[in-house]
C-alpha cells in the first residue's frame, strides 16, 4: 500500500463513519411532521442534526389545557450537553426556550402554551456540535366539561411581577430537586392590544457560586412559569436571578 492509497483508505474510512452523522439531515422524521423541513432555520447553517431517542420529551398525548401543557425534557443520558433548544413545529411562535445546563444535568420540567396540535421537540447540543433531537406529538383539544380553566388575571399582578417562590428537596426520591415559580404574565404579543411581555433570561447558581443552568425564555412559556430542575452536587441555598424583555430584573434565594 503506498502513501496515497493509504490516505485514501483512511479518508474513505472516515467518510464511512461520518456519513451516518450527516445522514441525520435526511433521516425520516419519526414524528412525520410536514413542517420538519422548515425547522432547519432554527439551527446554524451546516449543523448536524440527529434524531435520538435518548432525548426524551415527556408530555401528555392529549393536552386538555393548551395554556398549560406540561413538558419534561431529559437529555441527561447524552452526557455533557451545552444547550437544549425546545420548539413546537406548528406554534405561531415556534421557539419556546433554550436552556444551558452547567452544574445541573440537562433535565428541566416546565409548561408551555400551544395554539394547536403539534410536535414538541427538544434538540440537545453535545460537545461535538451535534444536535440530538427528540420529541413527541401533543394533540390539543378541549370542550364541554373538558374546557381549559379560565382564571381571570388578578388585578394586582403588577405588584407581584417577578416574585419568586420555590422549594428544594433534600431527602427521599426527589433529593436534589428544585422547583420554582416566577410570577409573570408571559404575554405573547399575539393578542390584539397586548404587546409581548415575557421573561427573557433566568439563571440559577448553587451555594458555591457555580451556575446550575441558564434559561432563555420566549413567549410560549406559560404564564407564571414553574420550573423543575436538579441541583447537582452542592447543597445549600440556590440563587435565582433574571429579567424580562422590558428590563424588569429580579433576584431571590431559595432556601435549602
Amino acid at each position, binding site marked *: 500500500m503506498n502513501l496515497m492509497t493509504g490516505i485514501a483508505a483512511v479518508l474513505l474510512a472516515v467518510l464511512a463513519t461520518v456519513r451516518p452523522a450527516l445522514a441525520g439531515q435526511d433521516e425520516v422524521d419519526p414524528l412525520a411532521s410536514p413542517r420538519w423541513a422548515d425547522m432547519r432555520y432554527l439551527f446554524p447553517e451546516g449543523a448536524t442534526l440527529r434524531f435520538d431517542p435518548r432525548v426524551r420529551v*415527556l*408530555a*401528555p398525548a*392529549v*393536552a*386538555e*389545557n393548551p395554556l*398549560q401543557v*406540561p*413538558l*419534561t425534557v431529559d437529555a441527561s443520558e447524552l452526557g455533557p450537553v451545552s444547550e437544549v433548544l425546545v420548539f413546537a413545529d*406548528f406554534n405561531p411562535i415556534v421557539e419556546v426556550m433554550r436552556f444551558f445546563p452547567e452544574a445541573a444535568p440537562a433535565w428541566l*420540567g416546565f*409548561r408551555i402554551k400551544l395554539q*394547536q*396540535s*403539534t410536535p414538541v421537540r427538544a434538540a440537545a447540543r453535545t460537545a461535538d456540535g451535534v444536535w440530538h433531537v427528540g420529541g413527541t406529538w401533543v394533540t390539543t*383539544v*378541549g*370542550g*364541554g*366539561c*373538558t*374546557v*381549559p*380553566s*379560565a382564571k381571570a388575571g388578578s388585578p394586582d399582578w403588577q405588584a407581584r411581577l417577578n*416574585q*419568586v*417562590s*420555590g*422549594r428544594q*428537596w433534600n431527602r*427521599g*426520591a*426527589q433529593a436534589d*430537586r428544585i*422547583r*420554582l*415559580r416566577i410570577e409573570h404574565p408571559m404575554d405573547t404579543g399575539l393578542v390584539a392590544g397586548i404587546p409581548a411581555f415575557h421573561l427573557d433570561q433566568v439563571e440559577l447558581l448553587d451555594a458555591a457560586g457555580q451556575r446550575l443552568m441558564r434559561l432563555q425564555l420566549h413567549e410560549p412559556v406559560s404564564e*407564571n412559569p*414553574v420550573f*423543575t430542575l436538579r441541583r447537582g452536587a452542592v447543597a445549600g441555598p440556590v440563587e*435565582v436571578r433574571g429579567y424580562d424583555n422590558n428590563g424588569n430584573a429580579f433576584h*431571590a*434565594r*431559595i*432556601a435549602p
Partner: protein
Amino acid sequence: MKRWLSGFLVLLAGAAGAADFDYGLKAQRVADGVHAFIGKTEDFTPANGGNIVNTGFIVAPGGIIVIDSGPSRRYGEQMRRAIAAVDQRPLVLVINTHHHPDHFLGNQAFAGVPLAALPGTIKGIGEEGNAFAENLFRLTGDWMQGTEVVVPGQALRAGHQETAGRRLRLLALAGHTEADLAIYDETSGVLFTGDLGFFERAPTTPHADVGRWLAALDALEAITREPGFRAIVPGHGPVARDAAPLRQTRAWLNWLQMALRRSAEEGLDMNETMARAIPAEFAVLPLSASEYRRSVGHLFPGVEQEILEPAR
C-alpha cells in the same frame, strides 16, 4: 392542522353511521311524574354526538318543568319530542343547572318557554358559551349543526319555589363550577344534583373548587336523609335510590385532592403527577384515567403553589 382535524372528525361522524343524528332519547321513569334521559358515561365523541349527560323533566299539574337541555339544538328538539310522547302538557320552564355546554346547548329548541338559571350560570353562559359551543363542534362534528347559544333570561334564587303547582326546593351551590343548581322535587322526593353528583363515571373538574364542592355534597347528602327522599338523578351516570352518587363523588374528590397534595409535597412536576397510578377503587370508574390527567392539569398549579415558599 386544525382544519385537517375537524375534517377527520366529520369523517368519523359519517363513518359512525350517524347520518340521521338520532340520539335515541328514551325517557326513564324515576318517580311519579319525574323522568330522566340518561346519557352514556363516555367522553364527547362524533359517535355519541355529545349525549353523555343526563337531562330530565317534571310533570307538574300546570305544565312541564325541563331540567337541562343537552349538548345541541338537535338534542333539545329530540328531547322535546320525547317529552311530548310521555305527557302533552305545555312546557312552562327550562332550567339550566350550570354553565357547561352539555347542559344548556339545547336551549334553542325551547323557544317560547322561559329559560332560567342561577345568576352565575347566566353570566357564565354569556361569557363562555360560544367558546364551549365551538369546542363541542370540534369534538362531536355535525351533530352540533345549527346550534347557537341561548342565554337564560330568568334568574333563579335559592329557596322554595312553586312552579306550575309543584313545590321545588332550589339549592344554589358551587364547587363543580362557580354556580351549581340542585333541584329537589319535594312531591316525588327526587333530587337532581346537576354535575355536583357523578355516578359510575369519573367527575370532571375544569372549573372546580374542590373545597366548595365537598361542602355542596354535604348539603345534598342531608337531603337524602329526609323521610321523603326517593332518588337521585346525577349529572352523569345512572339514577340511584340512595346517596351513592354523592358518596362516590366525594370519595373521588377527597382522593384527588390528597393525591395532588402528596405529589406536590414530594416535589413532582405535572407530568410526573399525571403518570401516577390510580388506586383500584377509582381506576374501575369509566374515564378515570383521562379525567384524572385532566384534573391534574386543572388543579395541580393551584396545589403546587401552596407548597412553594416565597423566595427573597
